[in-house]
């Protein structure tokens, strides 16, 4: 028992230390000043969280007035019930397909292969995962509580109303917490049934779907029990949740919630005596690796692991026709994009479109400038994704009998065309408002997008080292790449602004600015292609 708790405790301690490090606290530093800083940081975070909840409460109050204008507290309780039922429905299906007990690769060797008591491992693993999954629900419940406080004050809140907010939020949370603990434990127990003994019980999957269906049925708009007698099945959840919003005495609700929590934990205890930890580890090590990568901010690795899971084992060969030589690179890109459309990539391109649209439509130069800066950052990041992917496969791509400049061209060409298309699409609606600058921007867009993209590529290539690339690690675009893009693309834009105020014919302005932007694009190309050749 103690071993499982010791290992899990250490894991949680490390995770917690990561978040403490994120706010600048080093747990090895035991000086008084450092502890004082921790107290200050916690106080600051508490204040910040409170401020965020009160901010959300304004929208929440609006939602509650819209949802149930006659009885906002009943509306809040109903929303909380629906949220809980939706979560139960999704979780039921999830735990019937994959183990709720998540083990890392290290756990798979160090814990799952040992003869530790299965119940002890299950009970040691449960609290941290429960906490992690429960936090968003707690936030939602506190927001609903704050919203009710906001409504009771009719928007005239002052500093002396802080205790009212806190108490209303805690009342809602206090009612929900034991219910969610019990439900989580029961869901884990259900998942444990699949992982016990020599095989999955045949009734398990369909009963999960039936349970999910019943939970979804409870979300349908219908009058509560006793008006609808069949809704009595949701009463053990609806009643304690209602007490969290003042619909009945809170203590009664807390007692029902506590009973649910005890029942859930007992179910977990009973269901885990023959838990097969090896199967659980087989099902979850990949998922845990993804989560671990996300936790430390390595989203690229996490994305790659998720993509790998989505791809499955294999598939028949693509029917897409390929050309010889350099043309095989766009073919490879097309096959990659078709097999695993990257949602992050699509989002990145949308950001390029939105920022160019914002740059064209915003009425103030300050806003346009901010949009232009964001456009440079987003374009640099999304347009170099394919280049970085190929760099991470250095031993495949660099051996190809293709000149490095052409590889660079193949990696960036399509991104450039797409970025130009999206930039033009963004600029067109704003053309009337841009005046004389509009057509000039449209003409400059091909050079500007090329310059920004190449500056970002230069930044990536300049950071590359062969040893890292051979290990599959390609660097990301840094602030330096964005800054270089801003400087190089900003030069012709600044010239447009300055020449526009001089007594020079517009045609001459266009020629001069066109020449300068061509020059900056050429400089960026020269920097990037030379950095590619010189990778050490």
């Amino acid at each position, binding site marked *: 028992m103690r071993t499982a708790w010791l290992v899990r405790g250490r894991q949680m301690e490390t995770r917690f230390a990561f978040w403490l490090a994120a706010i600048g606290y080093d747990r090895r530093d035991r000086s008084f000043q450092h502890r004082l800083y921790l107290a200050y940081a916690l106080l600051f975070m508490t204040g910040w969280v409170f401020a965020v909840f009160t901010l959300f409460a304004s929208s929440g109050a609006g939602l509650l007035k819209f949802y149930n204008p006659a009885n906002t507290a009943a509306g809040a309780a109903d929303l909380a019930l629906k949220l809980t039922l939706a979560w139960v429905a999704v979780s039921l299906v999830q735990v019937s397909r994959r183990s709720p007990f998540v083990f890392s690769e290290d756990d798979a060797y160090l814990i799952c292969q040992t003869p530790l008591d299965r119940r002890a491992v299950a009970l040691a693993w449960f609290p941290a995962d429960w906490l992690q999954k429960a936090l968003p629900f707690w936030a939602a419940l506190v927001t609903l509580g704050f919203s009710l406080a906001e409504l009771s004050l009719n928007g005239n809140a002052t500093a002396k109303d802080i205790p009212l907010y806190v108490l209303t939020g805690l009342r809602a949370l206090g009612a929900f917490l034991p219910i969610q603990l019990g439900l989580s434990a029961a869901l884990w127990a259900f998942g444990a049934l699949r992982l016990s003994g020599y095989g999955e019980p045949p009734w398990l999957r369909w009963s999960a779907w039936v349970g999910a269906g019943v939970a979804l049925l409870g979300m349908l708009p219908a009058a509560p029990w006793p008006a609808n007698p069949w809704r009595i099945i949701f009463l053990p959840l609806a009643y304690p949740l209602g007490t969290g919003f003042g619909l009945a005495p809170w203590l009664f609700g807390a007692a029902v919630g506590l009973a649910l929590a005890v029942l859930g934990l007992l179910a977990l205890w009973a269901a885990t005596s023959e838990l097969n930890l090896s199967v659980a580890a087989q099902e979850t090590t990949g998922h845990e690796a993804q989560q671990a990568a996300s936790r430390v901010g390595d989203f690229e690795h996490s994305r790659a692991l998720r993509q790998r899971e989505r791809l499955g*084992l*294999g598939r028949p060969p*693509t029917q897409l026709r390929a050309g010889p030589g350099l043309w095989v*690179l766009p073919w490879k890109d097309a096959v990659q994009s078709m097999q695993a459309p990257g949602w992050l990539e699509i989002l990145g391109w949308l950001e390029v479109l939105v920022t160019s649209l914002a740059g064209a439509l915003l009425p103030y130069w300050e806003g346009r400038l901010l949009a232009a800066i964001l456009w440079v950052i987003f374009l640099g990041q999304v347009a170099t994704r394919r280049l970085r992917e190929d760099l991470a496969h250095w031993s*495949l791509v660099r*051996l190809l*009998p293709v000149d490095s400049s052409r590889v660079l061209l193949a990696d960036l060409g399509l991104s450039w065309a797409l970025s130009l298309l999206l930039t033009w699409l963004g600029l067109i609606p704003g053309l009337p408002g841009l005046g004389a600058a509009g057509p000039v921007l449209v003409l400059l867009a091909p050079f500007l997008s090329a310059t920004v993209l190449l500056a970002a590529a230069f930044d990536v290539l300049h950071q590359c080292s062969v040893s890292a690339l051979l290990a599959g690690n390609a660097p990301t675009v840094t602030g330096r790449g964005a800054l270089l893009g801003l400087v190089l693309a900003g030069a012709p834009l600044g010239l447009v602004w300055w020449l526009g105020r001089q007594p020079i014919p517009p045609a001459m302005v266009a020629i001069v600015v066109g020449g300068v932007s061509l020059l900056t694009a050429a400089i960026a190309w020269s920097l990037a292609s030379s950095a590619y050749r010189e990778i050490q």
Partner: protein
Amino acid sequence: MTDPLLTASGLSRSYGKFQALAPLDLALQAGEITALTGANGAGKTTLLLCLSGLLRPTQGEVQVEGFDLYRQEVPAKQRLAFVPDVPRFYQELTAWEHLRFIALAYSAGDGFEERAAALLREFGLWEARDLYPHHFSRGMRLKLGLLLALIRPFRILLLDEPTSALDPDSAALLAEKLYKLRQDGLAVLLSTHSSELTGKLADRRLQMADGHFVEA
């Protein structure tokens, strides 16, 4: 004696103050298998990376049939094949598609299907041809890496620890392939810790230590 297929002169590689490869000269003759041996960190992989064009040497040059590897990279790379000890693959491409990708990149698409099928069968990967290589075992990945080299024409084959993850049958098959390449007049340079492989296969053995060639 004919001109060597590959010559390296004054080739060196440093990482800051650390010299991984001391200036050295090397020539690979047609129809010759050369084994590169030495302890871990002796500089074998660095030498192979420099000879393959994956890692720019700090000094020196590499000529592949008269083409400078770093100035005339396209014709030089057409003639070179390199199999790293840990090959990497695109995760969205299957084994078959990797072979097609490489064959087409080297403009060797004619008769690709027959050649690919024969190689896959020979190395026991036929059944796994439509799988993604990230599901392969280490040995299977190494075999696919070898096939990516063998699917297209070349004159010089560089191999980094080619048998480290292979089962005995596959290692024997590889040895057979290398004999065949030697008979066809190609040059092979392989780094290995296997004295058996060196003894059976190599026409010449180059021992490395601290980035130098030393007496074997």
